[in-house]
């Protein structure tokens, strides 16, 4: 089983992306999606040395809902700042967010989430993967930003990834 399907998550993602790409769920397309989902991870196996282990898949839905809501809020906030507050009055700071995530994939998801959510862009990762450098557009209290990232996103990602 491990040899036939080396990366089950990747296989499912490829099959779903293929079906969305052809915009159809006809039996022929489902069959082709299954073949692609099995073949592509098999032939690109050497690029994926570690297997991603998702411990609690249902928590992903929860995570996506939280992030989608935050993206909506962050868009309105950034639009407000751009229209009415931009210029030297923005108190922009760089903060270090210490992180404790087990897998490079989890760190990638976290940095991506930081960039897409309220007023923060992830600028760099520590060489040992234990901290993220975050640029805040307008922060009164940098500690609150760190706390929000750790409590809202990192805690949930820890539950999802083993």
């Amino acid at each position, binding site marked *: 089983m491990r040899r036939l399907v080396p990366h089950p998550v990747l296989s499912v993602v490829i099959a779903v*992306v293929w079906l*969305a*790409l052809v*915009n159809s769920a006809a039996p022929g397309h489902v069959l082709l999606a299954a073949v692609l989902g099995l073949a592509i991870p098999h032939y690109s*196996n*050497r*690029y994926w*040395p570690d297997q991603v282990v998702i411990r609690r898949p249902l928590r992903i839905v929860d995570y996506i809902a939280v992030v989608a809501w935050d*993206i*909506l809020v*962050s*868009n*309105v906030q*950034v*639009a407000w700042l*751009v*229209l009415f507050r*931009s*210029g*030297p009055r*923005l108190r*922009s700071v*760089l*903060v*270090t967010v*210490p992180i404790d995530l087990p897998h490079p994939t989890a760190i990638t998801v976290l*940095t*991506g*989430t*930081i*960039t*897409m959510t309220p*007023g923060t*862009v*992830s*600028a*760099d*990762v*520590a*060489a*040992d993967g*234990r*901290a993220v*450098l975050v*640029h805040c*557009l307008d922060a009164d209290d940098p500690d609150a930003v760190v706390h929000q990232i750790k409590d809202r996103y990192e805690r949930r990602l820890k539950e999802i990834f083993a």
Partner: protein
Amino acid sequence: MATVVEIVVAALIVIGAFFLLVGSLGLAKLPDLMRRLHAPTKATTLGIGATLVASMIAFTAATGSLSVHELLIAVFLFLTAPVTAHMIAKAHMLRHPALQQQLPSPPGTGWATLAPAPVDPEAPRTGEMPPAP
């Protein structure tokens, strides 16, 4: 019914266009590169998101079958926008020594951008594939 669909689609397109305009305005108006990164990564995601939802509703109503192409565009955008912003920020920090002095120091080893390249002769060089398992 068709009128309701048209009103919803039109409203979503106007909202999308507004946020895309604000994103572009921010790119032009904000004072430095790090702050400019915020406008295209955020304001434009909602702009493009609203436009894509409008497209989904319009084509689902017009053809009678669910249109999910647009979700893929949104997924690819959400995957690529943070990576692009991250790489631009890293390149900016590498090219500006004054900014490097202002960085807070991380716990443990330094930031990945400023760390010296690994000198292990066994390590695969960039662009080379690792050996097959």
